[in-house]
């Protein structure tokens, strides 16, 4: 859990302007928040999250910077007072109309503010109290402040606070916050304009969760490990991060609930929890493994794993750096080091075309190896380790049996489904995100009831043809020509979208926010992988009696799920 700021961790700073700044907190350095100020990082390390600080400093004295915690009561002060007043108003509603101020007499230009820009700049330079004096001065020198209604006064003050307050809130950088940050403050296109609500839905429909402790019943677990998920992620690692968060393998400090801060600055030992059970896993036999080899090999976990399929040679998972996982040089204490695996589509479909997979580095006997120079020896170990890692992960992925499939891709989803659906275990869910609806309506169409029925009939025809004539009719390739996807493999294909609407809640002033970000809505497709029986089977369900009613009441949604009034044969 995120209980306090740890050294060398990425955290988010929420600024008075509602913008977010993400920074790594390195001990003994300065944190620079633009016009909102600068302060030493040591002053927030070890402090709890969600606290709001004011930056106080005396101009001219470099060591005078200090942070003051702003209490919740102070943050809510205005609302609490307003609420108190509101209660008073309720008691005498008859007076309200006569005393209510309106904007009838307000002057709509800037002449009301008597303070000049030069004066404000001068104030800013000598200010010590986190910008409060400036705002007080501004209010004081506003000539028409008494004409403002309570609401417009509040708005005016808020606007000035956003501009001049030297204040910030520290927020733990988790997937939810990063998603909003990427959407609002960064390039949203990099994450396919993924919204928080879509990410939540994707995880639920993908049934992504921790694979469970395997400390008991070891044998069955090893033969059929739990919680293996397949993912195609073109959001720079955001979907992988969201899945890892749900599986408990994203945060290197997850699991140590140490109340004490004593070991906070020490290097945290290999993460406990999900990985502990994999530690005794057999080490790959590496000739004359030196002592440093006793660490867990990369991508070696059996259960509770994420396998990423990527289009290029290297996966783009750059956003994982915010969670302490550098794609180029992953730290072996990070849970993702063992539980995150990546396989390219080429490795999956044609592994021998991959040079690393296909060419085994020749094994060198231990005695010969000992004569090598140390640099050459480590190069050998590295090459050999890499080959074994690729071999293991690719073979594992090709063997299939995954417990879930989550897709957020730029590619055509149906082309991805063609190769990934067969890798799923029965009853495993499939969830696809797309910023636009068209790719997903096409997928829905590929699983339509009409197509399913046509597929089944065609297959039966071909099988009968094959049985009748001796010449080899290749049923599979014939079918694939007409049907790129086997429509019988997915149950209950559904398309949906979610959108969150934010409200302002204030006494007497509650309403939805006036504006929010447009852009992609974000759509989720989901279904369940099933194993159709090979026997000849027909649908039941009294078509003659129910036909009319079904056709009218729930025509398409129900039909796309199961054939009720459709002749269905396998």
């Amino acid at each position, binding site marked *: 859990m995120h209980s306090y700021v740890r050294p060398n961790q990425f955290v988010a700073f929420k600024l008075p302007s509602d913008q977010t700044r993400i920074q790594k907190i390195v001990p003994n350095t300065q944190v620079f928040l633009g016009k909102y100020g600068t302060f030493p990082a040591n002053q927030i390390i070890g402090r709890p999250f969600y606290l709001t600080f004011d930056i106080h400093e005396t101009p001219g004295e470099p060591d005078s910077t200090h942070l003051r915690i702003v209490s919740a009561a102070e943050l809510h002060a205005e609302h609490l007072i307003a609420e108190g007043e509101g209660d008073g108003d309720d008691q005498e509603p008859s007076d309200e109309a006569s005393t209510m101020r309106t904007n009838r007499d307000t002057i709509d230009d800037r002449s009301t503010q008597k303070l000049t820009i030069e004066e404000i700049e001068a104030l800013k330079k000598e200010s010590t109290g986190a910008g409060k004096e400036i705002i007080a001065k501004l209010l004081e020198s506003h000539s028409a402040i008494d004409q403002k209604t309570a609401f417009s006064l509040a708005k005016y003050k808020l606007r000035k606070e956003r501009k001049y307050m030297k204040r910030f809130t520290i927020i733990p950088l988790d997937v939810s916050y990063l998603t909003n940050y990427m959407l609002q403050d960064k390039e949203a296109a990099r994450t396919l304009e993924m919204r928080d609500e879509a990410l939540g839905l994707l995880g639920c429909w993908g049934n992504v969760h921790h694979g469970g402790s395997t400390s008991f019943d070891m044998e069955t677990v090893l033969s059929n490990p739990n919680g293996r998920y397949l993912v195609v992620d073109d959001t720079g690692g955001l979907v992988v991060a969201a899945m890892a968060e749900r599986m408990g393998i994203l945060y290197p400090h997850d699991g140590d609930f140490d109340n004490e801060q004593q070991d906070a600055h020490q290097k945290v030992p290999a993460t406990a929890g999900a990985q502990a059970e994999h530690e005794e896993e057999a080490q790959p036999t590496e000739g004359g493994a030196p002592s440093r080899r006793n660490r867990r090999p990369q991508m070696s976990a059996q259960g509770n794993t994420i396998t990423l399929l990527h289009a290029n040679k290297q996966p783009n998972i750059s956003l994982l750096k915010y969670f302490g996982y550098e794609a180029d040089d992953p730290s072996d204490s990070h849970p993702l080091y063992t539980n995150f695996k990546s396989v390219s589509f080429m490795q999956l479909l044609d592994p021998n075309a991959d040079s690393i997979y296909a060419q085994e580095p020749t094994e060198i006997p231990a005695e010969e190896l000992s004569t090598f120079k140390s640099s050459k020896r480590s190069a050998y170990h590295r090459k050999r380790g890499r080959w074994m890692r690729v071999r293991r992960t690719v073979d594992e992925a090709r063997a299939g049996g995954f417990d879930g499939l989550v897709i957020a891709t730029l590619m055509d989803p149906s082309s991805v489904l063609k190769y990934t659906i067969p890798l799923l275990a029965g009853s495993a869910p499939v969830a696809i995100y797309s910023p636009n609806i068209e790719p997903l*309506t096409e997928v829905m169409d590929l699983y339509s009831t009409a197509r399913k029925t046509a597929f089944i009939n065609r297959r039966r025809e071909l099988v009968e043809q094959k049985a009748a004539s001796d010449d080899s009719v290749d049923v599979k390739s014939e079918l694939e020509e007409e049907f790129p996807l086997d429509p019988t493999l997915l*149950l209950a294909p559904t398309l949906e979208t979610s959108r969150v609407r934010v409200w302002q809640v204030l006494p007497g002033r509650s309403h939805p926010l006036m504006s929010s970000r447009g852009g992609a809505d974000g759509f989720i497709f989901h279904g369940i992988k099933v194993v159709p029986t090979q*026997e000849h089977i027909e649908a039941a369900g009294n078509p003659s009696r129910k036909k009319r009613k079904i056709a009218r009441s729930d025509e398409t949604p129900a039909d796309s799920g199961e054939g009720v009034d459709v002749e269905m044969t396998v």
Partner: protein
Amino acid sequence: MASPFLTPGSHSQLNQLALLHLRRDQAIPTVLQLHDEDNAGYKEGKVTTTRFGSFPHTTLTGQPWGSQIIASKVDTGSRRGRGPQKKNRQLKRKADVLTTNDSAEGANDSPSGSPQAAVAAASGFLHLVYPTPELWTMSLPHRTQVVYTPDYSYILHRLRARPGSSIIEAGAGSGSFTHAAVRAVFNGYPTTTTTDDTTPPPSSSSSSSSTSLPNKKRLGQVSSFEFHEQRVGKVRQELKEHGLDGLVHVTHRDVYQDGFLVGDAETGTSPKANAVFLDLPAPWLALKHLVRHPASGAESPLDPTSPVYLCTFSPCLEQVQRTVSVLRQLSWLDISMVEVNNHRIDVKREKVGLEYEKVRGAVVFPKSVDEAVTKMRHVEEHSRKYRELQQQQEEEDDLLNSTTTANTPLPASSGPAVPAKEEQAAAPSSSSSNIPLYKQGRLVHRTEDNLKTHTSYLVFAVLPREWTEEDEQRCRDKWPPHRVDQPMQTDKPKGRKQLKREQLQREEAEEQQQQQQKQQQEEVVAGGEKPADASEEA
């Protein structure tokens, strides 16, 4: 016991919950058993009957998850003295039994005997899938308003309910949120339930490792509160059937009055919650218990070492306003209110065109102006011909009238009907005969018919962990507040290549320096010699 929700394994197992998936939005939850406890009188043991046929549990057990299961012929008519409805079928059934299962019949007389083998029916099937919170939400028995997937997926995401979290849920209701919450916080079964497992206890070495684990790792748990006694019983029973009873603690409690401690209301243990979900009519009345130091002096139900995330679920704006007001008074931060709008989308092929005569769901209407004009031309042509025909006939009639008085209007009315039929037959063959039906028409999408426009308002808030003057002092001692080593790290962290290059440059520079030094030394030596020579000379 392992739960099929969390670790379903690869095959369905006896005494576990399985879902019989009939169609989208319709699945029947059932616990797989060979013998029916209710003793419904089936020869095949426990049987689930659906609109797509009957399914004896013998055909459902031990199957790979996701299998398509064929319905069985089950005698549903003659049990419990209900009059046989289809005599022929029953007789046939009996004949089957007599010929195939003579010995089994005998064994079946005793209740403990093994159930009779099922015989596949001619039609009907379903899919056997393992339960997930989503499917359960869809198929659970409704006791109260249910929190549906679009809401709970967002709530749990924002509550940061992650493996190892402890979450309080008040208002267990129908248990849909409970199941989703368990999945979110699950990171292993508690070790006490290991003994219940059928597998032998692990060897001493691995047991020691498993007992050392919980010390380090906190297991996720859900503490559920419900004030309706009957619902509490139902939820408990369900959770037991689902193998989740070790992970959820259900307490019968009025939380407005008695707070959130597990066990006894005053002396019970704290759930040490990181996340709270209140699905109550008046959440503000419960908030006084969710503080760091309750006024009653009891232990706080919150985790003292982490921030606490809260969500309340209220349908009305007035409830939200009171909740938010109390949250502000109790120092909750980052208060925000949202509503989730979710809708499902229908995708279908819209077929509009004159060629779709007699195609189900199609609209027979010109699909374009061109088609409309073509059709109009046809019609015009017809009427022209018709008029000509009529004129001709009239002329003929006149001729006839002049000769005979017989009136023959019939050929005139049947005249245009013949070419119209020809046109109908010709149109589809020209445009759509080679395109299969499932590819015809235009692919369209739209919001599904029944739309949920409002479920509830969600209020979110965070309570930071407590921070005292002593804590601050300890931090100051450990992290000197004004220590700044480097003036400012302005440039980006250097890449590996750059580091190498810099090292090379440094080495080169050192070499150069050394060489220079050498040269200098040599020069110095040479220079030293010179003056020596000079002195000698001198």
